[in-house]
C-alpha cells in the first residue's frame, strides 16, 4: 500500500506543478470538473443539433478548461432532464440546453414538482420560428387556399407533428381555433420524421422549424404558406405572418442555456462569459442566418421576466387546447 500512496502523492505533486500556470492566470471561478451539458431532447432533433454545435464551437476555440459533456436526457418530454437539473449534485457544473418543453412539461406534469423559476439563466442563443408547410403536389400556394382546402375536407385533412402538447401542436391548435378548422393530427417522435412523411405525402401539411424543412424547400418539394414569427423572415420574404392575417399570435422555440437551480453567482458569471463568446463567434452568427434563427439577446433580469411571461402564455395556450 505504501507504494500506491507514494505514487498518488507523486502524481498529485506533478499535476499541481503542471496546472500552476493555468490557475495563476485564471481570474475568478473556473470549472474544476467536466461540465454536465444536458440536452432536453433525444439525439437527432433541433435541440440536439444546436447543443452539439455549441459544444463544438466552445471546444474548437478552447473556451473552457474542462470539457462540456453532452448527454441526451429527453425522457418524458424533457421531464428527465428537468429532474436531473433540479436534483443536480453539483449545480456549478450542470447546464442544460432547452426548448419549449422547459415551460410546457412542468405545467403538464405537475407531479414532477419542478419550478423553472429556480433555474439559473445563462444565455439565450436564439429563438426558432415556426412555418406552415405543404407539399408542392398539393397545389396549395397561399394560406387562404389552405384554409379553404381544410374546410372542404371536413376533418379529413391530415397534419403531422411531434405530439400533443409539443410546440407545433400548440401552433396548430391555435390556428385551428382561429379559423375554425378540423384537422386530423398525427404525432411523430421527431421533427425529422415529420418532414420525411410530408415529403412522402403521407401527411398533407406540417408546422416545422425552417431548419428541419430547409433541404426539401430548396429542392422545391415544400411550399411555405405562413410564418408564426413577429415579422416576415429574411429567408422567406414572400411568406406572410400570422400577425398580418390579423391574429396577434407568434410562436418561437427557444434555444437557451440554463444552469441548475442553486448555481453560484461566480459560476453563472463564468458560463455567461463563455457562452457569450460562443454567441458572438462567427460560427454561431452564420448558423443563426443559415438555419433562420432569430437572435434575442437578454441579460439575466430580462430572461427571468421573459420566463415568467412564457410560463403564463403556455399556461393559457395549454388550457385552451385542453378545452
Amino acid at each position, binding site marked *: 500500500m505504501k507504494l500506491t500512496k507514494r505514487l498518488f502523492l507523486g502524481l498529485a505533486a506533478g499535476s499541481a506543478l503542471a496546472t500552476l500556470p493555468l490557475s495563476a492566470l485564471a481570474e475568478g471561478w473556473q470549472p474544476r470538473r467536466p461540465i454536465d451539458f444536458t440536452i432536453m431532447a433525444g439525439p*437527432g432533433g433541433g435541440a440536439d443539433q444546436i447543443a*452539439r*454545435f455549441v459544444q463544438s464551437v466552445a*471546444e474548437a476555440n478552447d473556451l473552457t478548461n474542462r470539457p462540456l459533456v453532452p448527454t441526451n436526457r429527453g425522457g*418524458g418530454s424533457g421531464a428527465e432532464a428537468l429532474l436531473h437539473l433540479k436534483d443536480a449534485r453539483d449545480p456549478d457544473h450542470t447546464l442544460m440546453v432547452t426548448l419549449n418543453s422547459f415551460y410546457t412539461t412542468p405545467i403538464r406534469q405537475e407531479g414532477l414538482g419542478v419550478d423553472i423559476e429556480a433555474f439559473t439563466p445563462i444565455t439565450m442563443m436564439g429563438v426558432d420560428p415556426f412555418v406552415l408547410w405543404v407539399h408542392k403536389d398539393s397545389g396549395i400556394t397561399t394560406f387562404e387556399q389552405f384554409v379553404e382546402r381544410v374546410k372542404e375536407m371536413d376533418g379529413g385533412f391530415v397534419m403531422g407533428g411531434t405530439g400533443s402538447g409539443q410546440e407545433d401542436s400548440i401552433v396548430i391548435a391555435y390556428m385551428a381555433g382561429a379559423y375554425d378548422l378540423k384537422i*386530423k393530427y398525427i404525432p411523430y417522435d421527431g421533427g425529422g420524421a415529420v418532414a420525411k*412523411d410530408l415529403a412522402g405525402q403521407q401527411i398533407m401539411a406540417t408546422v416545422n422549424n425552417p431548419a428541419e424543412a*430547409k*433541404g426539401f424547400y430548396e429542392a422545391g418539394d415544400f411550399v411555405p404558406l405562413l410564418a408564426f414569427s413577429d415579422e416576415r423572415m429574411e429567408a422567406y420574404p414572400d411568406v406572410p405572418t400570422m400577425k398580418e392575417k390579423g391574429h396577434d399570435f407568434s410562436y418561437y422555440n427557444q434555444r437557451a442555456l440554463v444552469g441548475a437551480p442553486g448555481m453560484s453567482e461566480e459560476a453563472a458569471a463564468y458560463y455567461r462569459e463563455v457562452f457569450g463568446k460562443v454567441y458572438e463567434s462567427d460560427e454561431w452568427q452564420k448558423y443563426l442566418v443559415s438555419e433562420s434563427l432569430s437572435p434575442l439577446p437578454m441579460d439575466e433580469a430580462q430572461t427571468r421576466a421573459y420566463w415568467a411571461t412564457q410560463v403564463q402564455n403556455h399556461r393559457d395556450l395549454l388550457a385552451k387546447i385542453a378545452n
Partner: protein
Amino acid sequence: MEILSFLADGVLLALLPINLFLIVIGVTVGLFIGAMPGLGSVNGVAILLPITFLVPPSSAIIFLAAIYYGAMYGGAISSVTLGIPGASTAVATTFDGRPLALKGRASLALVTAALASFVGGTVANIFFTLFAPLLASLALSFGPPEIFALMLLAFATFVGLGGDDIPKTVFSICFGLVLASVGFDTISGEPRLVLFDIPGFLRGIGFIVLAIGVYGIGEMLWTIEQTRGEITSMNPKMTVKGMVEDAREAARLGWRGTTIGSILGFFVGVLPAAGATPGSLMSYGVAKMMSRNPQDYGNGTPDGVAAPEAANNSASTGAMLPMLTLGIPGSPTTAILLGGMVIWGLTPGPRLFVDESEFVWGLIGSFYISNVAALVINLAFIPLFIWMLRMPFTILSPLIFVLSIVGGFAASHSMHDLWLIVIFGIGAFFMRKFDYPLAPAVLAIVLGPIAEPTLRQSLLLSSGDPTIFFTRPIAGPITVIAIVLILLPALKLFRRNRAVVHS
C-alpha cells in the same frame, strides 16, 4: 458511366494520404469502441465531432464514417467473446456467435463476422452507388402503415426462434413489448406505466439495459452456477494457419446467410424508421427459414453469424442514404453525422447530390476504402480478442461484470438503469433456470418502440379502420406475407397434433 467517373474521383479523394490516415485511425478507434458493451458508434462519432473542425469537411465526414464502420465491425466482437450484444444491431449475432465461442470456435465466429460484414458492406456500397436517388423515393413511400407491416414481418420471421415451451415464449414476447411501452406515450403526450411511480422510469427501459441484464449478468450467473465456476470448453487456439482455415470454413458455411443478409439488410436499412436492427434480425430469421438445417441455428452455425453481421453492415450503409438524400437520420449515429454536416455548412437533402457532388462522392468512395480497411484491421486484431478468452474464467467473469456495469452506465447515464440491470440480471437467471427463453423479450423491446407508434399513427390516419394495412399497395402484400408466416408454424403444429391423434 458518369457514375463511375464520379466514383473514381471519390475513391481517389479517399486515398489522399490525410484521408487514408484518418480512415485507418477512425476504423481502429471505432472497432474498440464498438467492442465495448454499452458503447457504440454513436459515442465514437459524438466525441470526435469537435475534432473534425480541424480538417476540411470532406476529410471530417470520411473520418466519422470510418468510425461508424469500425464500430459496426466491433459490435460482433463483444457478442461473440463476452456474449453481450454491445449494440442492438448485434443481438442476433449472439444467437450463434456465443455457442460457437463456447465450443472453442470463437475465431471461426469472428472471422465469419468479419468476412460477412465486408461482403455486406460492399454489396450495400454498390447498391448505394448505382441506385441512390431511386432508393430515396422508395424510402419516402414507406409511411407508418408500411413500417408497421414491416415490423409484423420481422416478428413473423422470429416465430420459430423461441424454445419449445410455447406459453413461456409467448410470455417472453409480451413481456418485452410491455417493457418497451414504459415511460412516455408520444401519441397522447402522457407519462405511462411509470412503475411504482419511480421517476427513473420516465425515460423508459432501453434495449441496452435489458440486454446487459439478461446476457451480461443473468447468463453469466447461469454459466457460473451450471459449470461450478470451472469452464474448460472455451479453449481457443489461434494460429495464422487456423485463421486461413476458418476463413475457408466461413466462406463454405456462411455464404447463404451472407447473401441474404447483404440484400435484405440494405433494403430494410434504407427505410428511415426501421434501420439496422430490424434488418439484422429479419436476415437471421429468413436465413434460418431458408436453411436446410434450421435446427443448427442457435447451436452455433457460421450461417447464423454471417446473416445478421452481413445485414447490419449493409443496413448501416443503407441508413446513410436517407440521411444524405433526404436529410433524415435513420439512427442516432447518422443524426450526429447530420449535425456535423450542418456544422460544416452543408445542407443534407435532395439537393446535396447536385450541389456538393464532390463531397458526396468523396464520402461514398471512403465507404469502399473504409470497408477494406475495417476488414484488414479487424482480422489483425482477432488474435487479441481470442487471447482475452484464454484468461482463466475467474478473471474473465469479474471483468465481464465490470464491463457490463460501466458500459451500462455509459449508455444510459443513470443509476436507476444500473439497478434495473441488476434486477433484470437476477430475474433472468431464475427465468433461465425454468427454461423461459429470453431472446424474444430482447427482440421485442427493440421492435416494440417502432411497432406501437406506427400502429397507432396508421389507425389515426385511417380514422380507426384496420383495413388500412391491407389496402395500401406496399403495406398490403407485406402484411399478408407476415400473417401467413405467423400462421404457418401454428398450422404445422395443428397437423402434427392431428397426426399424433390419428396414429
